[in-house]
């Protein structure tokens, strides 16, 4: 049996049921777009979390009487510290003014500079786990002259929690979307088989092999999944373009989104078609007394 003929038969069937085919592919696309959006969201959250971890800076507030050079030396020698930099009270005030921008006049109202001097600690790359930050915080606190340490580990912890939750959601959505697209593919092929029941019966009776009977339906399911997946990918890219207006730094993970949309679409098409064939293709074989004269 030539592949060209099987393709011709598959597309003949698609053309015959094009309304339901397009509708099913559209619903599949909508489901896959939902998944794509979550993938984009997770990807960006992971990026954000990673960037935040990489850029993490600890603030060791120190007493005004302590020797800055000695503090920088001791803190700089702690495990995991990439760089330690002393920031005097005056420098801290300048930074605050810069941060406040137009509202910096508020600072002028202050009679004294209330900001303490500090040592800014940049951690080594890859040294940002919660336990590592907590240990560094404790060690810095033990150094004479250090009054308080702010490590920002709460922020890392919160970002990590959000990323994990979203990833769990992703897995849940992946499962739900796969079941949904699988069901849609199954339904389409099932109705296609039902509408071609007579033709299938003739094929079987004249001696067509199982592959010849089944392959056009598998091609049909695959084509539908591909169309749904490709449409979902295009919609996801457009969606991402639109969001960059609001969040310019957001990234589009082309590979994972493409893989999820096309892979899941095609896979669901093939599996859905095979399930439908296994359930319905047996109907002619199961005919018994009903066909008796």
């Amino acid at each position, binding site marked *: 049996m030539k592949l060209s003929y099987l393709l011709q038969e598959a597309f003949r069937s698609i053309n*015959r049921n094009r309304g339901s085919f397009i509708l099913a592919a559209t619903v599949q696309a909508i489901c896959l777009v939902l998944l794509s959006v979550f993938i984009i969201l997770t990807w960006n959250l992971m990026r954000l979390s990673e960037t935040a971890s990489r850029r993490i800076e600890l603030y060791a507030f120190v007493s005004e009487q302590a020797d800055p050079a000695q503090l920088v030396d001791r803190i700089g020698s702690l495990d995991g510290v990439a760089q330690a930099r002393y920031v005097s009270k005056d420098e801290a005030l300048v930074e605050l003014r810069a941060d406040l921008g137009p509202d910096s006049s508020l600072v002028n109202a202050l009679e004294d500079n209330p900001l303490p001097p500090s040592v800014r600690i940049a951690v080594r790359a890859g040294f940002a786990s919660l336990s590592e930050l907590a240990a560094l915080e404790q060690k810095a606190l033990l150094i004479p002259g250090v009054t308080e340490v702010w490590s920002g580990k709460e922020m890392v912890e919160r970002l990590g929690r959000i990323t994990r939750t979203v990833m769990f959601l992703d897995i849940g959505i992946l499962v739900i979307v796969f079941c949904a697209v699988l069901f849609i593919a199954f339904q389409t092929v099932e109705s296609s088989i039902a509408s071609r029941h007579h033709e299938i019966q*003739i094929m079987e009776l*004249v*001696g*067509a092999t199982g592959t010849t009977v089944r392959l056009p339906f598998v091609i049909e399911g695959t084509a539908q999944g591909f169309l749904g997946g490709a449409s979902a990918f295009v919609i996801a890219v457009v969606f991402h373009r639109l969001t960059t207006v609001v969040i310019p730094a957001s990234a589009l993970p082309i590979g994972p989104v493409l893989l999820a949309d096309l892979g899941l679409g095609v896979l669901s098409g093939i599996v859905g078609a095979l399930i439908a064939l296994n359930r319905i293709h047996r109907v002619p074989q199961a*005919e018994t*007394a009903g*066909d008796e*004269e």
Partner: protein
Amino acid sequence: MAETAAESINAVELVGVSRLYQHSWPALTDVNLTIEKGDFIFILGATGAGKTTLLRLLYRQDLPESGKVKVLGYDLRKMPASEVPHLRKRIGIIFQDFRLLAERTVYENLEFVLRVIGTNRKEIPGRIQDTLNRLGLVHKKDSYPHQLSGGEQQKTSIARALVKEPEILLADEPTGNIDPRAAADILNILKDINYQGATVLMATHDADLAERTRRRRVTLDAGRIVRDET
């Protein structure tokens, strides 16, 4: 699965075949029947006598509870499902209700069969043309089934069975849905097919038709063979 040519002199061999429907109602009981290659045989009987069941066993649409069914040397009870297409390629089947594909023309109905059984594409037009010529359907080749008379539809159904050059032709009440004149025409076509070498089994309830033809007649009654006359 199939025996060698020397062993296989019979087209059909049924030994002690019984088939129950819904585990109790006997559709066929202890049927013994041998049909040699090249025979023309009528399977006679009233509605519900077991004619269709018998034919269904021969193209392995159904399997008996007991007994042996051999067709063209294949032992059908031992035949795996994957080999059924090989058997069916060698058998032509004709139904009372024609079972033509409504959205395809006469030509396309025949072409469909040849394409799905993997016939070389170059051979297809010639084989269809020969078959349509043989059945006098050339002028109807572009007609759809609904544009044909009952007799023409049955001829198309025969053409569809014949185009793959079967060794056995199973006809289930082929004259049941057509007028007497068309029925006589169909019968002549079947006789001609048999004359060309194919074994023909024709199930019918029309005993008069069978008697006029003077061929072997096997009569079924309540699933049992009650008469076997030549």
